[in-house]
């Protein structure tokens, strides 16, 4: 990473270990597509990478406006990459608004590539520029490469007879071509992709390929003087195998499919459109051959209720949403807890409360996940740390749900859902299956004639008639999963308190106490691995404890701090509830515990409550992920000899993605 202590700080003229590039343009400029294809070429070149797509909440914001700016950041390198990068080394600005919104983030000495063709009076006005920044010297501290990309694109696609408006649509491909040259990338996979994408319209495919090639040729042949020269980033030494890129939403979907297969169950997914969770519904809707039924319900409540109904009938019920939608599902989660039916609830967190920041990331639903229900309503919660980690977490959520007959919440966030990273494609043969066996009369000991169950004594009629015990418990505390349609096991369940064993309505004090305890103990007994230390040694000065998508920046910040000789360790918690059995002991071994979170300190509260330790919060609620430098600075405060300056709030950073909010 160019911002690493060991990396050069002056632009990209030397070969750094990592480079951060940000493509920014108008919503209509195709920046996400450009970024996505650049990501692919980066992956194919063998570099490790992380991306951060940032798009406006508006679907078609007015052209050229500040709030219509769409950006895509990628951090790639010849070593392991864990974050989308703090500050970009290269900014591609397709119009004045894109420059205005993003320029403050660029590293001093960084490279600006700008399309002069879009810096018209009208566009400058829309971006509230009094003078043209490409000409007025205000970009002096950066390297500037400004030329008329629009005109060059029109020229390149001229042979294909497109009008100017259509021709300009290929501007992003021209720019991508230049970027491919800059980083010594192969164009062939992008050619293939364009041919495939426009297979019904070969002229458009050819025009885009021509634009791409022209951008590439421009880099190769034009007299690009000054600091601009081609950079070859050597491939990272990653584990041998087959790789692809994956976003969190894709990985969750794939993990759910894998989880259902490992459980040998059909999957039923109930969803309702909501940002940023809808992508999971979209992915699963195309996977019907895997026994997946997707149901777009009339609302969030119906989505979870239908999933509960499907679980009752013997499918693996899954629902997914984001904070406000999860809030609507709350009562139904209680029903799943009470009836003890398996269910996976995916929460792609976003900024809240209420509608909050639909397209921005936050980790502020932890209280909601762990505590946010009426009654004593325990539910396992696990949190994914990265796009690829979401795959394993989704499988883990399915396993816990079916083995313990319980709803499970899987927390991701807007950043994880949308960001992409390379993923070593796992071999399904290596997954441990957890096949479900539904109860039948045999398994419940009800098949033989005249068998008497103790609970049958109180029932009406023939005393020899054995009673179905849907709330009998196995050694894990889980009840049998009895599908309707099973002969001889008719029974009734519901949200009302049930008698132990029979499940009949029972309000008696002893019974409610016993059932409350049983539900709690079952969840507290969920089999989960001991907590490991992600980086560092046990028993040092400081444990930095994270969960969810803060994994990358914390890991890098701790790595740098250790390199400076500080006794710091990174502990990253996946199992949020119940917590790993050894976590308390592990944390008590450190002098200090710091918990960085993109909320006001929610996991910190859970740790304090569970272990009575003085966990300190480091919070950030600007809708922006932590930067490595911010975390490194916060860690440094434990080693600066100054008392009482530890922890606290990281202020909003107007030089960081996403920063469109400050313009509103």
């Amino acid at each position, binding site marked *: 990473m160019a911002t690493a202590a060991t990396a050069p700080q002056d632009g990209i003229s030397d070969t750094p270990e990592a480079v951060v590039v940000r493509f920014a343009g108008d919503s209509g400029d195709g920046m996400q597509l450009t970024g996505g294809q650049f990501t692919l070429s980066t*992956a*194919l*070149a*063998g570099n490790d990478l992380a991306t951060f797509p940032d798009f406006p909440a508006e679907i078609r914001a007015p052209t050229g406006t500040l709030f219509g700016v769409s950006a895509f950041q990628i951090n790639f390198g010849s070593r392991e990459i864990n974050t989308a990068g703090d500050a970009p080394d290269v900014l591609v600005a397709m119009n004045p608004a894109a420059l205005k919104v993003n320029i403050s983030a660029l590293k001093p000495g960084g490279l600006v590539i700008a399309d002069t063709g879009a810096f018209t009076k009208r566009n400058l006005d829309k971006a509230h520029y009094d003078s043209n920044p490409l000409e007025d010297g205000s970009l002096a501290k950066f390297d500037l490469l400004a030329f008329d990309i629009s005109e060059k694109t029109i020229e390149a696609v001229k042979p294909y007879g497109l009008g100017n408006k259509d021709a300009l649509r290929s501007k992003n491909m021209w720019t991508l071509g230049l970027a491919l040259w800059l980083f010594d990338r192969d164009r062939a996979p992008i050619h293939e992709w364009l041919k495939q994408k426009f297979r019904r319209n070969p002229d458009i495919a050819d025009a885009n390929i021509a634009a791409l090639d022209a951008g590439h040729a421009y880099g190769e042949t034009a007299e690009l003087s000054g600091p601009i020269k081609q950079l070859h980033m050597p*491939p990272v*030494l*990653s584990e*041998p*195998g*087959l790789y*692809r*890129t994956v976003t969190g939403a894709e990985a969750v979907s*794939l993990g759910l499919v*894998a989880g259902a*297969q490992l459980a040998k169950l*059909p999957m039923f997914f*109930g969803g309702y459109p909501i940002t940023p969770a809808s992508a999971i519904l979209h992915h699963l809707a195309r*996977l019907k*051959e*895997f*026994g997946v*039924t997707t*149901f777009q319900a*009339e*609302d969030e*409540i*119906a*989505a979870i*209720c*239908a*999933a*509960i*109904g*499907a*679980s*009752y*009938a*013997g499918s693996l*019920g899954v629902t997914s949403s984001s904070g406000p939608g999860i809030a609507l599902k709350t*009562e*139904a989660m*209680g*029903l799943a807890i009470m009836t003890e039916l398996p269910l996976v609830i995916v929460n792609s967190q976003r900024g809240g409360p209420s509608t909050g920041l639909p397209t921005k990331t936050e980790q502020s639903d932890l209280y909601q996940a762990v505590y946010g229900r009426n009654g004593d309503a325990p539910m396992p919660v696990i949190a994914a740390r990265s796009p690829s980690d979401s795959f394993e977490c989704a499988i883990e959520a399915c396993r816990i749900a079916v083995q313990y007959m319980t709803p499970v919440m899987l927390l991701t966030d807007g950043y994880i859902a949308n960001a992409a990273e390379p993923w070593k*494609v*796992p071999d*399904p*043969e290596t997954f441990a299956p957890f096949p479900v066996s539904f109860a039948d009369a045999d398994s419940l000991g009800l098949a033989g004639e005249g068998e008497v169950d103790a609970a049958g004594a109180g029932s009406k*009629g023939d005393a020899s008639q054995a009673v179905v015990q849907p709330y009998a418990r196995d050694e894990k505390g889980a009840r049998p999963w009895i599908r*309707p*349609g*099973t*002969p001889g*096991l*008719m*029974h*009734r369940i*519901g*949200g009302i308190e049930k008698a132990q064993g029979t499940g*009949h*309505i029972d309000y008696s004090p002893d019974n409610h106490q016993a059932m409350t305890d049983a539900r709690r103990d079952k969840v507290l007994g969920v089999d989960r691995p001991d907590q490991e230390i992600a980086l560092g040694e046990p028993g040092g000065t400081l444990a930095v404890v994270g969960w969810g998508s803060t994994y990358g920046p914390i890991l890098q910040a701790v790595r740098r701090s250790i390199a400076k000789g500080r006794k710091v360790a990174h502990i990253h918690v996946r199992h949020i509830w119940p917590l790993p059995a050894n976590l308390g002991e592990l944390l008590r071994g450190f002098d200090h515990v710091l918990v960085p979170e993109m909320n006001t300190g929610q996991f910190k509260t859970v740790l304090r409550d569970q272990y009575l330790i003085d966990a300190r919060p480091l919070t950030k609620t600007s809708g922006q992920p932590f930067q490595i430098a911010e975390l490194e600075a916060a860690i440094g405060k434990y080693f600066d000899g100054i008392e009482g300056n530890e922890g606290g709030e990281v202020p909003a950073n107007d030089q960081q993605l996403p920063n469109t909010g400050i313009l509103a």
Partner: protein
Amino acid sequence: MNDMTPITTTLKDWETDQEVRWCPGCGDYAILKAVQRTLPQLGCDPKNTVFVSGIGCSSRFPYYIESYGFHTIHGRAPAVATGIKLANPALDIWLVTGDGDGLSIGGNHMMHVLRRNVNMQIMLFNNEIYGLTKGQASPTSREGTRSPSTPLGSYDHPAKPAAFALGSGARFVARGFDVSKKLPEVLIAAHAHNGAAFIEIFQNCIVYNKDVFDDFAAPKGAEDRQLWLEDGQPMLFADGTKGLALDTVNLALTVVDVVDGDWQAAGVVVHDVRNRSLAHMLVEMPFGPFPMALGVLYDHPRPTFEDAVVAERAQASEGKQPDLAKLLATGQTWTVDGTAADPV
């Protein structure tokens, strides 16, 4: 799939060992008996039958039927039932709800289960009051209803369950009442309908809204105030002395006298359960000037939601093997060899 062969059962086979907890004299008892009497007639198999309910007095129903049962949460039974049906379309689903559960807190789900046409029997017990919460006015309470929440009389306009159902796209709409001997016939017709079958069952809440339906449900003079509809038969009541004809000027139904049984001369309309326009007139017909229309008001099946879901899944899966390894490796991939120097 479940074995759906009709089986032989008796009323006793459908009784559970649970003590029934409705108030003495509640209309729910009569409905329970009517259902338990009807299920054997239909050849239903307890193991393939699921009663799903929401919250309220009516929603205790599943506990008293010896089948599979799911007592869900307030208003959400249609959504839970939809999930059950999609997961196992072979199950025979009976949904039990009330006027508050089905039309107030669960109105949205009711609308969507009807318009999607998920195959199930939906019994809405309409007692025009919230019983379980001790007598507040409900969305079907008549204007002026005095209740703990409306001590000076309610002023919101009541919803009409059958009109709501038809407006939501229901393809089967029927009416009956708790103590009616004809209720089983209505239930049988609902069960025969392939799709969402909506049955409004007027039910007497003996504690909070006693005898509110006596105007038409009381045995004395019932023939003058009840119009039992039969497909293909003239819409006659009052022992055949009155009927419903079409007022072609106002495009509405009108009550006409029938002299000497000559209903044709009086212009009495023949009931056609497939006529949606007629159904709209029947559900809007105000009781008082008109008799209460009972029986099957509308019955015109169309393809069900679960059939479409199953067909789509089959079509989308055709010729495809669910190969997880292949799925995981979808998209553009690359391999890293031992040295990682040479990406492919």
